[in-house]
């Protein structure tokens, strides 16, 4: 197959979901079954095409890229002509990501057909799923920062629309707004980062930017600016991938329909940040990568500590997602590029599975509660579950596989990728001395195993909260269980590497060759051969440690929640403030509420006061002064000016009144005056 065909095929995968979106949004209600089959069919075809792209791409080493000039800005002083290009880049990274996105999207489409049956905005839901898929593919296959940013925002928009799908619920519309606004904060940083790059290089294209930097042309001739640009662009990933400190939106986003949580808020969109870091990996300096690694580590630890104490099944999964995303970011930060991205792929499969599984549980619980006419019991609270194993066998077994995978138990996909991440962090610490990173990574691995099995045991094992409800719970329909089975199958190691204890020999790891860093050697991260050598040294140790830790976490959860060897309540009481902090998510929401929300409100109040008192005061004061001055000037005018004029007029008037008596109208009198006047003049003239 000619490589150019890949471009056309990837365009097809891009526009098929868009076509689905447009058809559904305009004609959805008129189509049969409200058009769900249409969106699903389009995405399925796109998935098939993406598989073709993946196999075709893996067969050749070259990357395929094509673009065209979208807009030309000519004659900019000092720069000349600037061409803004749009285009497509297909390399191993984007081909793999494309398949991940399309696969999860397709399975979620199928699952949604069951989960959202009879929903009020059924066709609109499928339309938005199409819009999301379109935007996500746009991020994946683009070859420039501008398009990436555009689709980045589109993804944020579709996420907003889908979280707020049930917008009649106040909590859902609030969650949608929160997600959007928090993401905007990260995106603002990303935009500034992109602008730093664009202002200096006058191009958005990855290739051109990488080429310029590797030629020694740094933004503003400074390595610090390059680091700053990297960290600012990473801010976008902090928002989108729910990293500390912008992680607060993701748990709230669980207000959306559960399949949406699986697609967007677990598997694909939140991985966009990871993808972006991987895509721009060459331009990150060692300092920027260190920041990235620590942000990831803090996020992983923070989210894991919170996940331990949550009771809402989706909230636990949401926090575990944040924690796993932290893992991926940390892996990329330490330079374990393939490990981080591989974890994205494996995590996408088992986390989508976990969410769809939880969706199945919630669906079944809802149906049972509905039959009981019970509208008060929370269908998502794991304290109301228990013992579901017998009633939901398919969900149970698939959920078990997903849980094993996320906990990093051998023979699962999760073990492969997590093992590589742990090895990467430990190797990095042996090279650089940042021992905190592997410490956090291993701690989180144990905690993950613990809280995931806590969730699993409380949901499926033990006694059901209300034994009489249990018989009413029935297995979900095939359209929902088949996606679970597919994803469970994909959580087995064999799809990623034939060696269950080593990912590095697998095709995925081989395909994800770490790109060469383009930054100056002085600030570049440790090269891959160096890191790889360190990884090889510690790999066996890490593998044993990670198995021990995961099994220990698992066993501890088993002891606490199944055997009840220790009382969870007593342990919580013993932890005291730690427990309260964790169950309240370390008060981040309250803190942000107090600092930013109330701060903004206080600022508006101050501005309002300033406006009402100072600005209006100045205006009113100026008015009063003018009024006073005009009153004085009016008084002067009335008294002196008018007085003078009136006085003159009065004098004239008085004189006139006096003089008018002379004017008798009697012509003879005038004549007398004339004669006497003449006589007087004559006498005067004659005398003198």
């Amino acid at each position: 197959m000619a490589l150019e065909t890949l471009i056309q095929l990837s365009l097809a995968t891009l526009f098929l979901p868009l076509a689905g979106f447009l058809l559904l949004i305009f004609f959805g209600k008129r189509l049969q079954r409200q058009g769900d089959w249409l969106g699903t069919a389009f995405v399925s075809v796109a998935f098939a095409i993406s598989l073709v792209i993946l196999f075709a791409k893996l067969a050749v080493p070259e990357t395929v890229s094509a673009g065209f000039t979208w807009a030309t800005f000519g004659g900019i002083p000092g720069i000349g002509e600037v061409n803004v290009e749009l285009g497509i880049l297909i390399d191993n990274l984007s081909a793999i990501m494309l398949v991940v996105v399309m696969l999860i999207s397709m399975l979620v489409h199928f699952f949604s057909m069951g989960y959202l049956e009879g929903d009020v905005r059924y066709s609109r839901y499928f339309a938005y799923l199409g819009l999301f898929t379109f935007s996500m593919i746009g991020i994946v296959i683009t070859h420039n920062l501008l398009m990436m940013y555009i689709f980045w925002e589109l993804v944020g928009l579709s996420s907003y629309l889908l979280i707020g799908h049930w917008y009649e619920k106040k909590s859902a519309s609030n969650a949608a707004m929160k997600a959007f606004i928090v993401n905007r904060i990260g995106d603002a940083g990303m935009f500034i980062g992109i602008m730093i790059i664009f202002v200096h290089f006058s191009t958005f294209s990855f290739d051109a930017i990488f080429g310029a930097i590797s030629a020694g042309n740094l933004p503003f001739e400074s390595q610090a600016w390059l680091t700053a640009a990297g960290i600012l662009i990473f801010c976008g990933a902090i928002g989108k991938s729910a990293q500390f400190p912008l992680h607060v939106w993701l748990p709230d986003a669980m207000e959306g329909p559960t399949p949406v949580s699986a697609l967007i808020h677990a598997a694909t969109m939140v991985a966009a940040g990871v993808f972006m870091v991987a895509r721009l990996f060459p331009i990150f300096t060692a300092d920027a990568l260190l920041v990235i690694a620590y942000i990831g580590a803090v996020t992983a630890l923070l989210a894991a500590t919170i996940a331990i104490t949550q009771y809402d099944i989706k909230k636990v999964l949401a926090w575990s997602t944040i924690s796993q995303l932290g893992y991926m970011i940390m892996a990329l930060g330490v330079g374990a590029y393939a490990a981080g991205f591989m974890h994205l792929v494996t995590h996408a499969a088992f986390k989508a599975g976990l969410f769809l599984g939880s969706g199945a549980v919630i669906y079944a619980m809802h149906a049972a509660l509905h039959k009981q006419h019970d509208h008060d019991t929370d269908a998502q609270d794991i304290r109301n579950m228990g013992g579901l194993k017998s009633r939901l066998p398919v969900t149970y077994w698939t959920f078990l596989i997903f849980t094993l995978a996320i906990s990093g138990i051998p023979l699962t996909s999760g073990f492969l990728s997590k093992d590589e991440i742990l090895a990467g962090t430990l190797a990095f610490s042996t090279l650089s001395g940042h021992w905190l990173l592997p410490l956090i990574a291993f701690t989180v691995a144990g905690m993950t195993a613990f809280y995931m099995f806590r969730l699993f045991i409380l949901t499926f094992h033990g006694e059901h909260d209300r034994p009489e409800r249990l018989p009413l719970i029935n297995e979900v329909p095939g359209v929902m269980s088949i996606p679970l089975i597919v994803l469970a199958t994909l959580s087995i190691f064999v799809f990623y590497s034939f060696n269950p204890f080593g990912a590095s020999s697998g095709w995925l790891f081989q395909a994800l060759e770490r790109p060469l860093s383009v930054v100056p050697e002085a600030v570049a991260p440790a090269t891959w051969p160096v890191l790889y050598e360190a990884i090889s040294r510690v790999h066996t140790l890490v593998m044993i440690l990670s198995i021990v830790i995961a099994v220990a976490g698992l066993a501890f959860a088993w002891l606490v929640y199944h055997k009840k060897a220790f009382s969870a309540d007593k342990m919580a009481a013993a932890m005291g403030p730690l427990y309260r902090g964790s169950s309240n998510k370390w008060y981040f929401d309250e803190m942000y509420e107090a600092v930013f929300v109330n701060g903004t409100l206080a600022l508006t109040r101050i501005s309002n006061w300033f406006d009402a008192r100072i600005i209006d005061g100045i205006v009113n004061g100026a008015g009063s002064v003018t009024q006073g001055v005009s009153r004085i000037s009016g008084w002067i005018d009335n008294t002196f000016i008018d007085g003078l004029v009136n006085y003159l007029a009065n004098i004239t008037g008085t004189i006139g009144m006096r003089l008018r008596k002379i004017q008798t109208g009697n012509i003879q009198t005038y004549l007398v005056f004339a004669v006497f006047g003449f006589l007087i003049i004559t006498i005067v003239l004659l005398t003198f």
Partner: protein
Amino acid sequence: MVLPEWLAEPGLNHFLVVSAILFSLGLLAVISRRNIIMVLMGIELILNSANLNFVAFSRYGLLSIDGHMIALFVIIIAAAEAAVALAIVLNIYNRFGSVDVEQISELKD
């Protein structure tokens, strides 16, 4: 009876005096009479005093024949003036029903 010297031989001064008296009488009539006809007659007297002056100057002074000519003109003009003035008087009488100059004082207002 022997006339004093300044009376014995009539000269220019005599005429002028007579003319002055005539003028004064005319003026007096114009000023003091209330009947407009009498006022017109006063004007005639004034004109005649002027004529007397012209003629006297013509006889004793430097005006020579011009004085006579002017006197003749004045007489002609006086005749014309009398015609016009009497027409005016007639109109005044029609308008006011009186020929009393005291009552014809609308100019005042």
